[in-house]
């Protein structure tokens, strides 16, 4: 039996042709409607349903890991993903590579006036799917609207909270001479997927972003029992930046073998065309790990047994070096430094 009372006496959100307007951030009915009909509909759970200014979370017997990340990627929809999924993957991965189990997320949205609600719905659905896949729950959120021209569609800031089991201690300052360095798969996919769609650059390359949550892979790696010292996801600045960070934190040198580093042919070709180095290009679904040499085979096997680590390989080793230089034996037979990128290769990659 249908109720004679119209539900809430509100006009449903026009997700087909509607657009974000200033009232969606104004604290009034329109904002509440956006919360309930869009965000809560897709991302809702028992915690979000508390509906207060803050959320109670159950007590947790152990250490917590927290990480936060703002997402400003352009374009918002790119081959292989969108800002919604990316905003979940990016933060889940930051928590996961600490060795923690990601549990909760918060999300802050900055929406630009005039942004199509249909696009916003796609983004929220994509977040919901990514959160479900990663097994995390959105427990708090916020939405603000800025005038047209003061934003660029959508910016999303997410914060992730995870539980760190006893006995796990991963940190960028733990790499030791003799350790080996592994990467979980091909590098440069995300950055080149974005670049292939930039308006002043567009080239038709079959490159998909690798945007994905890695907590399944990190769990499998930890379960292998290998003595992992460091895990990192090489996002902005690519492999080169991440490895340099670890070298500096640990006060060690790292030697890479160029021939061992997996790069998709399309990514390599696109980099060649644009004069870029795949080692500087961002990833959103890859990780690197440093472990004791004697455990390398065990860790590699565990990674390869996981769908996200099938292409995992050993790409280098940690050496003593007070200068913390990262060096690479080139395929050509020479040796060179692998440095941080200077300046900005491509703004708004994630």
């Amino acid at each position, binding site marked *: 039996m249908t109720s004679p009372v119209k539900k809430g006496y509100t006009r449903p959100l026009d997700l087909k042709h509607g657009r974000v307007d200033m009232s969606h951030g104004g604290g009034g009915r329109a904002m509440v409607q956006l919360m309930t009909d869009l965000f809560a509909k897709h991302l809702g759970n028992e915690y979000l349903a508390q509906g207060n200014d803050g959320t109670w979370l159950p007590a947790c017997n152990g250490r917590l890991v927290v990480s936060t990340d703002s997402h400003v990627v352009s374009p918002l929809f790119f081959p292989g993903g969108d800002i919604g999924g990316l905003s979940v993957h990016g933060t889940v991965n930051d928590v996961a590579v600490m060795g923690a189990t990601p549990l909760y997320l918060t999300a802050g949205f900055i929406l630009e006036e005039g942004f199509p609600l249909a696009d916003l719905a796609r983004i929220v659905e994509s977040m919901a799917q990514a959160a479900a896949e990663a097994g995390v729950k959105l427990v708090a959120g916020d939405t603000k609207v800025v005038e047209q021209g003061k934003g660029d569609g959508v910016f999303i800031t997410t914060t992730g909270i995870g539980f760190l089991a006893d006995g796990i201690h991963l940190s960028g300052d733990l790499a030791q001479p003799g350790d080996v360095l592994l990467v979980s798969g091909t590098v440069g996919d995300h950055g080149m997927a974005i670049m292939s769609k930039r308006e*002043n*650059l567009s080239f038709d390359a079959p490159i998909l972003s690798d945007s994905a949550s890695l907590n399944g892979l990190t769990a499998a790696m930890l379960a292998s029992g290998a003595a992992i010292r460091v895990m990192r996801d090489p996002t902005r600045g690519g492999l080169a930046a991440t490895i340099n960070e670890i070298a500096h934190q640990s006060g060690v040198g790292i030697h890479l073998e160029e*021939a061992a580093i997996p790069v998709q*042919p399309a990514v*390599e*070709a696109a980099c*060649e065309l*644009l*004069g870029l180095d795949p080692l500087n290009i961002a990833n959103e679904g890859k990780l690197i790990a440093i472990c004791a040499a004697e455990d390398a085979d065990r860790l590699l096997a565990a990674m390869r047994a996981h769908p996200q680590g099938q292409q995992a390989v050993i790409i280098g080793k940690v050496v003593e070096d007070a*200068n913390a*230089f990262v*060096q690479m*034996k*080139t*395929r*050509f*037979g*020479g*040796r*060179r*430094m692998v*440095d941080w990128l*200077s*300046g900005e290769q491509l703004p708004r990659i994630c």
Partner: protein
Amino acid sequence: MKYVDEFRDGEVAKGLANAIAAEVRPDRRYNFMEFCGGHTHAISRYGVPDLLPESVRMIHGPGCPVCVLPIGRIDLAIKLALENGVILCTYADTVRVPASDGLSLMRAKARGGDIRMVYAVTDALKIARDNPDKEVVFFAIGFETTTPPTAVAIKQADAEGMQNFSVLCCHVLTPSAITNILESPEVRELGTVPLDGFIGPAHVSTIIGSRPYEFFAEEYRKPVVIAGFEPLDVMQAILMLVRQVNEGRAEVENEFTRAVTPDGNLKAQNLVSDVFELRRSFEWRGLGEVPYSALKIRERYAQFDAEARYQLEYRPVADNKACECGAILRGVKKPTDCKIFGNVCTPENPMGSCMVSSEGACAAHYTYGRHKDVERDVEQDVSSEVASHGHE
């Protein structure tokens, strides 16, 4: 990657390295200048020096378009963006070159200038079409390789009757720069820069051909080997140069036959001469005023000439006193000879232009080769230790 991997093959490189090692004479040294920044970058990125005998030294030349751009020219571009309110389009590296008053195009952008990085001059044309109410200026830099596209863009703008597009032309010429180096006192009289030969430009030569270099070979008795930008091209060219030196020859040889002919690209040359004419003189960073070394837009296309359109007056600005870019661009000094290399001047905060572009000698050494300086220090420490033990 097909067609590229073949030119980066480590095994072939080993073979060439052995051939070079077998050919060099123990009683002499070989100093070759690679003119182009493209070669400088390839040499550093692939670690080519590791495959060369100790007696073969590569000197980085001035062929990095961003590096030779003088401060005064960047100042003009900044003025256009900040004072004339134009949309200024240029190639990416140019935006980081330091200019006067602590500015660069990137900093001018942060101050509100509408400065856009483009990958091709056609992007600047598109921006002009999309913004009919704004003036768009393309800041055109580069050697003979980037000149034909600029010529095409100007002709296209002319054909379309575009009213809001112009070009700040800073295109420069390779042969004049080589002459300038060969005529410099360091090379000619003082002998402080021993130069035994040149690796000739790759892409530039596809346009101008190999003939323009014959003059250098004959007049200055310097061998020239034109080479592609792949590391195996460079190795092969070095081998050919070593042979010429050993045999007392000074000829123009072409390693890059897959792309370079004696006459070059005549169609491109005609396009360029239709749109541009020689400038009487042009300031280069490092080389100073070099006669007939750059191009300007012909009277016929004056409406597309930003210098005429905005009545720009060029004012030369001296480089930072501590900066050695000038001497480095002439091959007189190495990046590590510069006091501010790596401490004051870094890729993040370049003081001189050679630290800006990845083709610049300083940026290439900083990014790819600075571990060698440390190793050299260690070797010296070890050898001085050995020497002091020897005295005991």
